[in-house]
């Protein structure tokens, strides 16, 4: 198991190196550079050249990349934002806190509501409740988040006045963005949980368990749920990676100070160190989550454990 984890970590390192190089190349190919951002729209060529020289942007791509890798490897330093001059690590930490809070709230909500609805639908498969949940899931999946967000603001902030529109100060501020972010996941999880539970319900081992005389509660808990949860965990891992990378649209609409807005602004500003730092962080999160999901699988499903680890 330890060897497996080590192998995975080594792979992750290579992956991060590749990701950072790709981001460097992409931003280099993209038109415009941070000198434009810094010197302003009407700057002369001389002003631009002076700014470029000062920032080292006139160096070849590989030199800049080598400097970046050197900084990270030797000093653990991600560099500083070209535009604001602040350390990238500080920027990421500031924004990641808000993103993490929002992601975890959305995840918790999705997990609780999605599983509950999915289970209810499975138990009452074919009934009105099932129909209602599945119809709701279709709706939830197809609502674009910017629209859902504006709808929620209209109803809960403006009409009812229960919740604030923007800000990040209190738990109340978290509710609307978390719900918006959770809606598609709730829909997905409800649908997934329902179909997995229905699949497993007709499996042989469940019939055997029933035949043994196990009560319905025990059958559900030990046999149905444990098997049906595996795909759910895989999906959750991906979902969490997705929302931890910064949910740009939701962050923009609710003015939530998360990672997504930081990255998009940095891309527009061609602020290479910030973009690279953020993409590395996101890649790292995906790697970590994938590993966690695989380990969790092994833990929950003895069959996986022996083959893979």
């Amino acid at each position, binding site marked *: 198991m330890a060897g497996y984890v080590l192998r995975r970590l080594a792979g992750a390192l290579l992956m991060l190196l590749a990701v950072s190089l790709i981001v460097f190349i992409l931003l280099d190919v*993209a*038109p*415009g*550079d941070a000198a*434009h*951002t*810094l*010197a*302003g*729209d*009407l*700057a*002369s*060529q001389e*002003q*631009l050249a*002076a*700014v470029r020289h000062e920032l080292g942007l006139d160096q070849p791509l590989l030199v800049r990349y080598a400097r970046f890798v050197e900084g990270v490897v030797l000093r653990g330093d991600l560099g500083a*934002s070209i*535009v*604001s*001059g*602040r350390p990238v690590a500080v*920027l990421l930490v*500031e*924004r990641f806190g*808000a993103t993490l809070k929002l992601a975890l709230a959305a995840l918790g909500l999705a997990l609780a509501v999605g599983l509950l609805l999915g289970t209810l639908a499975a138990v009452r498969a074919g009934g009105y409740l099932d129909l209602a949940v599945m119809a709701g899931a279709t709706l939830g999946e197809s609502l674009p988040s910017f629209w859902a967000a*504006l709808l929620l*603001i*209209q109803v809960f*902030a*403006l009409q*009812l*006045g*229960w919740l*604030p*529109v*923007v*800000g*990040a*100060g209190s738990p109340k501020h978290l509710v609307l963005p978390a719900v918006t972010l959770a809606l598609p996941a709730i829909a997905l999880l409800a649908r997934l949980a329902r179909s997995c539970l229905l699949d497993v319900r007709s499996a042989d081992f469940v019939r055997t368990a029933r035949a043994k005389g196990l009560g319905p509660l025990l059958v559900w808990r030990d046999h149905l749920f444990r098997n049906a949860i595996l795909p759910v965990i895989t999906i959750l891992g991906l979902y969490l990676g997705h929302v931890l990378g910064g949910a740009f649209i939701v962050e*923009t*609409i*609710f*003015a*939530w*100070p*998360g990672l997504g*807005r*930081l990255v998009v*602004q940095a891309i*527009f*500003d*061609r602020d290479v160190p910030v973009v690279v730092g953020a993409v590395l962080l996101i890649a790292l999160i995906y790697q970590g989550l994938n590993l966690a999901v695989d380990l969790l699988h092994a833990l929950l499903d003895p069959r996986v454990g022996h083959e893979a680890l």
Partner: protein
Amino acid sequence: MRTMRVLTLLLLVAVAGCGPAAQTPPAAPTTAPAAATEAAPVAGMTDRAAPTTAPAPLPVIGGTVTRAITAEPTSLDPHAAPGSGQNVILPYLFDTLVFRAMDNTYQPYLATGWEIAPDGKSVTFTLREDVTFHDGTPLNAGAVAFTFKRFKEAKTSAGEGLASMTGVEALDDYTVRFTFSEPSAVFFSTLATPYAGIVSPAAVEAAGDAFGQQPVGSGPFKFASWQQGTEVVLERNPDYRWSPAPITNPGAPYLERVVFKVIPDASTQLAALQADEVDLIFVNAPNHIEKLKADPSVELIETRLNSLIYLGFNCARAPLDEVQVRQALAHAVNKEEILMAALGGTGQVAFAPMAPTLPGFDPSLRQYELGYDPARASALLSEAGFAPAADGTLARNGQPLNLTLLTFARAPNEDVATLLQSQLKAIGVNVTVQQYDTPTAAKAATEGQYDLLLWRYDRNDADVLNINLHSSRIGSSNRFGYSNPQVDELLDRAARELDEAARARYYVEAQKLIMADAPWQPLYVPVDVLAIKKRVQNYHLASMGRILLNEAQVLTQ
């Protein structure tokens, strides 16, 4: 639910700052506005265009005004790269030597007076002697010299106006002299921008690169906190005694706090205003303006910007290198239709290259406008040798007239570009619209990779024509490949002319030539509509879209 609502109310009340024990102002207790006697609590929507002159209740200290900002500044250092939206916040934190009035004249601010040498190559300022920075250090000639050396070295486009400045020195504690290699007409407008705010040398040295995160100036409000991605909070400067001319309050501001909330999305800004979470937003979308017109708690004011939206022609590229073709395309543009369809009738049609709020604009230039005249457009193109092909597209020597229209992604550019496309189609010109993010579009424009350019300028000085249309700028800010030696000569003279009236005349002459050459077809002057809660009283609108809160107050419900 009920308790939730009560809680929200309480929160609002707390935000509104009608908290306990409102103190009386230590600064100006005796100068309570005479207007207080004629107090009408909810006035202030009498004259939409003018600053509010509403009588206020007795000034009490307290209250918060919250303003939504679309973009979060990267830095609050006045000398940092402009354009990230810091110009909205800087004027509250920093004072400038001179104040620019609505009529574009310059009035004393930190400088009590100034003297321009007869040769125009030096300007000497006398400073107020009672000004201190937020850190307690005195604002003196040394600080001013320090500021302008730093500003010039920062090499940002905001410091463009200091190009011919050769030095700045403190003659004594409160006298400072600027010297120039040649007279600089753009110097005073540069002095009045927020980017020329005087910084505390002690604070700059102490903070180093972090100064932009903890700015120290001498303004009516001082920096309190900055929560990245969320808000910037300023608090009142109790020692403030040096308000510029339009302010009658000689002392410190009454407001306890000014908060700038970062809200990137326009719909959310609107919702936040309606939910009383912010007091002040700028609205552009016609449907948002309609919505707010129906809201009795909101006052709407059209603010004039020193900006212009124009259609630029690439004079270096065939067939637009022919003046006839440019004039023809200009005649094909129906500006009224653009204004109505894309902007819901806000804004005003432009005819001259100079924005109407800038010196050098002259209504008489209207007679030189290449107005909407499709017949004339077709005639000019046929004179130039273009004839309609079978499908109606104009062609010359077998080459169809296909043009690209480049613009940047920002409302309502897409609508305007589509309209231009259909208007040009009507005379047989095929237009392909290319809309990119701003840095991409700016690079393509600078490199001249376009035929038609839908663009905008925002600049507080008439030198915007020098920057955009002088031939020495071809390859950088003259993106049009436009060159006319007579225009260059007039622009050069204007740049050296310190007499405002004479300078304006040079610009008028230059514009006559420019309008005939048609490197641009001016389209419209954008309008930003300020939506402000009526509970905010006694604010002042100043030039460059500034909103002064030096004597503003919030009414408590």
